[in-house]
């Protein structure tokens, strides 16, 4: 069933991609094939392989239970929030929060996760910024 759903999504993706490629504006500099042909070939391959998924699906993968799916969703949201927070709050503060949260969700006790997160943030800061001189996001406090 998963493969069939995947196949339908794949065909929709291929159709969308093909439709978008027909909208590419031609330029006055033109080679015989132009910018549309290659994307159209790709769209055909996408559509054909998706069709195979629908006709000959593989055995069902082990999807995680709703709880775990929620877990992954939360972590994705956390990483997005982290990306947004980086330029605002600076590297060390945002990384400490994000790393603590992740290690808590991966099974560390909260009392262990917080020092671990701080240690990860400080460790990366020392190694990559102070020693290797990489520029990390600077927050209001300069780190």
């Amino acid at each position, binding site marked *: 069933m998963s493969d069939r759903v995947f196949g339908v999504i794949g065909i929709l993706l291929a159709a969308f991609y093909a439709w978008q490629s027909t909208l590419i504006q031609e330029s006055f500099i033109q080679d015989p094939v132009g910018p549309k042909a290659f994307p159209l070939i790709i769209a055909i391959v996408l559509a054909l392989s998706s069709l195979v998924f629908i006709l000959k699906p593989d055995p069902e993968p082990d999807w995680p239970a709703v709880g775990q799916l929620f877990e992954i969703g939360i972590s994705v949201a956390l990483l997005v929030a982290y990306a947004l927070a980086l330029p605002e709050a600076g590297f060390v503060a945002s990384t400490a929060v994000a790393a603590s949260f992740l290690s808590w969700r*991966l*099974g560390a006790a909260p009392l262990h996760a917080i020092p671990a997160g701080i240690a990860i943030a400080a460790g990366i800061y020392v190694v990559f910024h102070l020693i290797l001189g990489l520029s990390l996001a600077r927050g209001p406090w300069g780190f």
Partner: protein
Amino acid sequence: MDVLASLADGFAIALTWENLGLALLGCFLGTIIGALPGLGPSNGVAILIPLAFTLGLPPTPALILLTSVYYGAMYGGRISSILLNIPGDEPALMTTLDGYPMARQGRAGEALALSGIASFVGAFFATWGLVFLAPQLVRVALLFGPAEYFALFTLAFATLGGIASRNQAKAAFAAALGLGIATIGVDGQTGVPRFSFGEVHLYDGIDFLVAIVGLFALSEVFVFLESHRGDADAAADKMKIGRVIPSLNILRRTTGAMSRSTVIGFICGVLPGAGASLGSFMAYSLEKRVSDKNKTFGTGDPRGIAAPEAGNNAAAGGALVPMLALGVPGSGTTAVLLAMLLALNITPGPLLFQQNPDVVWGLIAALFIGNVMLLLMNIPLVSLFVRVLLIPPKYLMPAVAMISFVGIYGISGSTFDLMVMVGFGVIGWVLRKLDVPLVPVILGVLLGDQMEKNLRRAMTISDGDWTALFASPLAIGLWAFAIIGFVAPILFGRFFRMKHREEDVGD
């Protein structure tokens, strides 16, 4: 022998303090990356590329660092295979079959040392193979025109799927997805934007480093979140290491296994798309057939450790041949190394040997040096690496995720790229769930631009005549191989996979 003269020049380049230091650092990091379950050569190198890039290393030192990591990871993978019965990376899977039983008999140290020596033998001779084979391949590659290159890229995608995946349609889908991602952005030939939806950030396309780090490193974090939550801490400390010097007797008994496996592994590595996993699998299967007279394989036979380890390290060296000579990588990790070269504005392929001989030969010399370092490092210091296995994933994985962000943010400083990377992480996780291989996606993102450019160049030359793609005998040969490579696994794959699974379960 101008090859040897070039190699000597390479040693002159590689033997500077800076490069030696980078090789040492790379070998050390690589062994750790390989040893940690869940971090393999491809995602390890993927995380480090942006770092090497933002540190502003020139091409040769950057390549030396990353290929040392690559070779190191091939060595490191065996450590957790032997001690924990968990392969540190995919190619080390076969090493668990005899390595773990041997460790349970209290001969863990011997198994580690023997596998270290087997790794050295495999990698050492494969590097010699690279020295002699790559320039020959370059000579062939000079005959390639745009049509032949287009056929060659198709061949790479066709054969890559056959071995990397269980389902050819999924491999084809993955390749098309990657190629599609590569077309996003302003078209290089006519200057019109494609698939950018008016978003300025998309005009220069999606940076392949963002895609690679997202697909490989972040998706690994999600896989861990799902499966390894609250996992028990690693148990390596309970294992006694024992003596770490193998007896001459064992070395003598395993010489045959090592030499056979090196040859098999190297050939598997050179074939496009096959890579180290196939190298170690073929080496083990062959060795089992040749020398398992008393049914000792699978119960801790030293030859069962020497064979896959020599095989996977030889394949690692072999995979560099098509990557350097043709610009078409032979495995996932070499695809990532190709990304590194492209990021440094170096186009691999025949011209690389003419225009940047310092890069090529410096790199090859560094491989020899790194290999010796790895042997020296891996035998006496093995207990140090064993200790690294004790870091539980609940602290390791957050660090991996954060370092991925550091690398990408360091290159672009853009929040948008970080979002795209998280997106790729999610896509990578879903694709892995559905058994869609990720390597063709990466290869598509990397090679898409070149592939399209060659197609359109061929069409420009022939003035739009599509039969020009099949005009030369060389092109026809490449197309034939591509079709065989794509169709054969569908016909014979079932048989091969059944055997593979039998080996997996058969311990």
